């Protein structure tokens, strides 16, 4: 009997093989994503959404010479697979030649086989509801109102191509997020893990409740330049946005990246090192990309110096290099993006950062971040769920939320303290940072 959580290697690759057999193209690639997902959402101290989904998506890329067509289906029957292959072939036949298509990757080094977590697969509606009840009980005890979500997802990903490449892995992600609200304040906590048994919802709930309590009666402060301590959820948000625009091989080729032509140059502070490490166990591991190529560890910034970018086979060919195994789905035109980012930790605790700050702000997390100018990595967004004023090395209370508008590479040049403990938000693991003269451009009313 198979111990696969969603779909085992043989079954997944058999489905891929049936689609490959149905293709008449010169080259064909098949991706299969089979998933089982469960989610429980809560608000106002009760569950309002309890949902589950099963699905299997098949994505076929067919190539005739340099002409490429892409088709997808979630019908994995023999007829569905034949149909999706035929549609991909028909599109390839109708396409114009694409000079940048390098052909499909030939079989190479086999990616490691990853398995999902059994505890996460077994984390069903009753287990999620129990985790939520723990959160709600903490909020109720503190006179607060809890909202959030608890989820557990497992999926199998298989890739096969007509040149003989084969890859299969399982992944799992368990997640809980909560925002506790009081009269005029709120607090937040969140965690991601491969193993649902490590979620510790009660401990997280205490963090959210403490933040909510400590930020009551927030005072208004003026926007402007502030010394700021960004807790890890704020840092991971910013680093993800930076990575999408800066280290994307396509953005670099097209001149849209803020590090275009700057590889080897100092782009931020010498205390900043950022890598994409797909197999680092601190993150949600991903062994291979949507071309079935093993994801390589890529050093993006070392000691402030830009070191590299990520590629798929298409951008690699244009750049005259090799793919780093960062291809997205063939239907995506976004370009290759690093999804396993790690910002190197430092030595300080958040408490030590606060103690070392004469006057500044402590930011729990950001909200609705968006690049105002991607080619300069200027990011904007709001603070939320716990923003605090620091005076004389102590937190003296909550402040109303502020809008920041800041160049990220410039901000990373003004980091003078780095946290020793990191936090994972699905794609990025990062510690807290203290940044001098961080630019807040506006304020809101709460």
């Amino acid at each position: 009997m198979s111990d696969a959580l969603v779909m085992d290697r043989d079954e997944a690759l058999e489905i891929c093989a049936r689609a490959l057999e149905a293709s008449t193209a010169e080259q064909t690639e098949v991706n299969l994503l089979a998933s089982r997902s469960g989610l429980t959402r809560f608000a106002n101290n009760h569950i309002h959404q309890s949902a589950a989904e099963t699905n299997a998506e098949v994505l076929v890329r067919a190539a005739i010479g340099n002409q490429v067509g892409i088709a997808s289906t979630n019908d994995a029957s023999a007829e569905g697979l034949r149909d999706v292959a035929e549609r991909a072939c028909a599109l390839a036949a109708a396409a114009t030649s694409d000079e940048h298509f390098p052909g499909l990757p030939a079989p190479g080094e086999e990616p490691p086989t990853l398995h999902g977590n059994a505890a996460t697969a077994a984390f069903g509606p009753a287990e999620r509801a129990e985790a939520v009840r723990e959160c709600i009980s903490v909020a109720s005890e503190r006179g607060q109102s809890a909202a959030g979500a608890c989820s557990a997802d497992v999926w199998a990903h298989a890739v096969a191509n007509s040149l003989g490449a084969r890859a299969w892995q399982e992944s799992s992600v368990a997640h809980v997020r909560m925002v506790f609200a009081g009269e005029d304040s709120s607090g937040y906590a969140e965690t991601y893990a491969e193993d649902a048994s490590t979620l510790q919802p009660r401990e997280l709930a205490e963090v959210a409740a403490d933040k909510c309590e400590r930020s009551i009666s927030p005072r208004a402060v003026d926007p402007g330049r502030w010394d700021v301590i960004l807790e890890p959820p704020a840092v991971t948000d910013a680093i993800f946005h930076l990575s999408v625009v800066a280290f994307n091989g396509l953005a670099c080729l097209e001149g849209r990246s803020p590090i275009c032509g700057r590889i080897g140059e100092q782009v931020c502070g010498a205390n900043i090192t950022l890598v994409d490490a797909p197999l680092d166990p601190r993150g949600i591991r991903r062994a291979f990309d949507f071309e079935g190529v093993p994801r390589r560890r890529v050093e993006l910034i070392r000691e402030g110096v830009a070191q590299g970018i990520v590629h798929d086979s298409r951008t690699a060919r244009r750049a005259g290099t090799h793919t780093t195994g960062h291809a997205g789905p063939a239907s995506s035109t976004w370009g290759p993006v690093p999804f396993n980012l790690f910002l190197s930790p430092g030595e300080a605790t958040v408490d030590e950062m606060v103690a070392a700050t004469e006057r500044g702000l402590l930011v729990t997390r950001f909200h609705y971040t968006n690049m105002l100018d991607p080619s300069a990595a200027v990011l904007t967004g709001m603070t939320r769920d716990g923003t605090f004023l620091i005076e004389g090395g102590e937190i003296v209370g909550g402040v109303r939320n502020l809008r920041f508008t800041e160049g990220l590479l410039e901000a990373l040049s003004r980091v003078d303290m780095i946290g020793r403990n990191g936090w994972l938000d699905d794609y990025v693991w990062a510690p807290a940072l203290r940044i001098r003269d961080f630019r807040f451009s506006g304020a809101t009313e709460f």
Partner: protein
Amino acid sequence: MEDLTKLAVEAAVAAGASYADARVVDRRSERVRVKNGAVEALTDGRNRGLGVRVIAGRGGAGAWGFAGCGELSAGEARAAAVRAVELARAAATTIGEPVRLAEVEPVVDSVPAPVQIDPDDIPLDDRLALLMECDRQMRAERVEIAVGSISVLHQRQHFASSEGASIYQERVETGAMLEATTIADCGACRRSYPSSHGGQVMSRGWELINELDLPAHAGPLAAEARTLPDAAECPAGRMDLILAGGQLALQLHESCGHPIELDRVLGTEASYAGTSFLTPEKLGSFRYGSDRVNITADATLLGGLGSFAYDDEGVPAQRSWIVRAGIFTGYLTSRETAARIGLAASNGSMRADGWARLPLVRMTNVNLEPGELSREEIIASTERGILMEDNLSWSIDDKRLNFQFGCEIGRLIEDGEIAGMVRSPSYTGITPEFWRSCDAVADAATWRIWGVPNCGKGEPGQTAHVGHGVSAARFRDVQVGVTSDE
């Protein structure tokens, strides 16, 4: 389709649901995207499945459960129904108010898609040739990146409920966009037509593509992108602001459309997308905008991306007032949220992103009704200001008060005339202050419905296709130029 939805509803009721509905959704999505003379994406996606939503647990007044399955068979439909009931029972273990639904008359109906020219009748070769011609014209203007895209969605859906509703609906969406980008020392300067972020998308057929006349705009668009880096940077300070087209649509979307979603107002999105400053005690009395501001939600508009015949609870499409002469008068509702604030009926705003997602309160077509002045008269009566077009960047706080937008292009207005372009324009404000500063809305001559095909909400994430009818509007004394320290 119909058989499976009814079977799933019956199975859910047999398993203990006090209410159940089911939707089978079958989608086909096609996209052609051309970039710098080559086909960048040629895709054809098919996706179908069944979603079952139930109320169960705690003696029938319990909680919602939802299960989706991508395999369409009688066995899977029954299993999904039973799973949904189990999920609801697990949810009912926390104490909340019982779920009550506002009444709706169960409908049996079948509604075809209102298209004039079925996109299926347009061969792929013709679609490619159209985009290649636009690409040629854009690159003739020597822009670094030229992109053109055409997208088509066909959707068939059947809805059935335990109250007796049985509704079949078809939907066709068609969209297109052109983008020209110049890379310069000051960064990437982009111009889009007819709007940014996917262009224009409507619930219409190929007649929309014909009306857009893409080749006529490709060259001028690229020429403007080529010269944009030479324009002055956006000034910083307070001045009058005129918004038009897609940017006014997005302003309306973020600062009015989302805060009137009643589920969000009642807190169910609090941990993720946030809540709303438009709390229920403000209904009927809060001054949202100036007297010139009249906003409707209208799912009945022909061709709107947020138009339909019935929402995903089987409630008929409606037109309702959101803001009338500046006063906040209405929400977007579901049956449950309408009942929760004492309304007799929902205004039909529950929409799900395909079969795998639970319906949420979503925008339909949220519109700024036309005013009296022409767009030209508004510009002519502006002493000093800036006209901003086509969004680049958007952000707003979690109660939808403090917003900030960046646009592709600004046009300075001096003494009632356009005085030149500015690049990287941006502005910021607080929602009610901003709409209260609106002193002119352009008339129906330039009023059109803009599609927003990428409206995100909910967990797991859902993307809604919504619309906004707008013309142009002027706002007095707005903070522009947000990147300066001054």
